[in-house]
């Protein structure tokens, strides 16, 4: 594949080191035989385990966790009246510490109308239907704050996404996407995160990629962000056109990842490098 070598050299020349390393992986991957099956059951591990002690401490202590501010913002928004129907989240759901317990751990899921929704999607659906308000923009601060606040109510609880007749087709799609080679680097999620989890790329250990901590404060972003944002980063990483926010592909991937991480405990909001 001579073109891969050309791109590799131009990456080096442009000093896009991380990209060059990914390309070298693409070159070497066919020859690198040490791979494994997707970790299951007790072999599964949150990416928390791979972090430095400093970053772990940042996540563990709410007074050090930069995402705490998003949770507090969300707590305020929960009480805020919005939209033509003059309702707040609290108007229907009351005390979030009671009503939202375990909720984030059950997403993504299908609603009564047969739409697959993530937690953010569900928050926006409530805004439209029950508050008569405009939905929050994808990755907007208020939406992330509410997601962080609601997800925080499931902290320490197991992910409860199971295979059901309602979701099995979307789940199968998500699994196909996980195993599908994509982008100029022609890599699938599985090749790094299932087969080579625990090995290193560009000096960083490869996590198994379980969505146990979302939304996260990613040090790279210097901000809180969603799983969709992170998946889009992965797609850029393999030089694929990232799927749009709210796209079926991202939702199906999210569904598959949540099912793959079923029974693992939520850490939201997490801190990740």
């Amino acid at each position, binding site marked *: 594949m001579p073109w891969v070598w050309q791109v590799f050299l131009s990456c080096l020349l442009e000093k896009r080191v991380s990209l060059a390393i990914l390309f070298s992986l693409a070159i070497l991957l066919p020859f690198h035989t040490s791979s494994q099956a997707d970790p299951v059951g007790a072999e599964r591990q949150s990416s928390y385990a791979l972090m430095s002690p400093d970053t772990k401490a940042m996540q563990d202590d709410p*007074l*050090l966790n*930069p995402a*705490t*501010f998003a949770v*507090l*913002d969300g707590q*305020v928004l929960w009480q805020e009246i919005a939209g033509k129907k003059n309702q707040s989240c609290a108007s229907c759901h009351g005390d979030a510490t009671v009503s939202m317990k375990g909720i984030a751990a059950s997403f993504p899921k299908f609603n009564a109308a047969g739409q697959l929704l993530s937690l953010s999607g569900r928050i926006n659906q409530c805004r439209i239907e029950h508050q008569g308000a405009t939905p929050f923009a994808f990755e907007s*601060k208020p939406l992330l704050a509410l997601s962080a606040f609601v997800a925080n109510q499931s902290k320490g609880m197991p992910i409860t996404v199971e295979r059901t007749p309602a979701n099995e087709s979307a789940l199968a799609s998500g699994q196909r996407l996980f195993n599908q080679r994509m982008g100029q680097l022609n890599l699938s999620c599985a090749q790094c995160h299932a087969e080579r989890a625990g090995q290193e790329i560009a000096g960083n250990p490869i996590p198994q990629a379980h969505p146990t901590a979302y939304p996260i404060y990613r040090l790279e972003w*210097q*901000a809180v962000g969603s799983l969709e944002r992170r998946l889009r980063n992965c797609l850029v990483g393999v030089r694929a056109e990232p799927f749009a926010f709210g796209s079926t592909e991202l939702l199906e991937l999210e569904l598959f990842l949540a099912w793959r991480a079923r029974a693992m405990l939520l850490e939201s909001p997490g801190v990740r490098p």
Partner: protein
Amino acid sequence: MSKTSRTIVTMPATAKKGEILEIRIIVQHDMESGFRHTETGQRIPRDIIRDFRCTYNGVEVFRVELHPAMGANPLIVFTTTATESGTLEFKWSGDNGYASSTTSTLTVT
């Protein structure tokens, strides 16, 4: 700059005279360094907190000069001696008229 800007102060409410107290303070602020660019290549202007002061019953006991290399949501952990009961005031100020202040009461026995 963040739309809301909270400060979280962690310190004991009571202390013995002469005791050294650890104060931990974190403020919500993006600390836009001025070195980042938008996707279309435009530089995002610098917008940071520049100054932090702690006063104890009106007397300045600790001050910090912040530069763009200070991380987002600045966290500072420092110490002060419990001298008398009273109020500690924590003030942040910075670019674009940013100003934020929090107080904490301390009982010293």
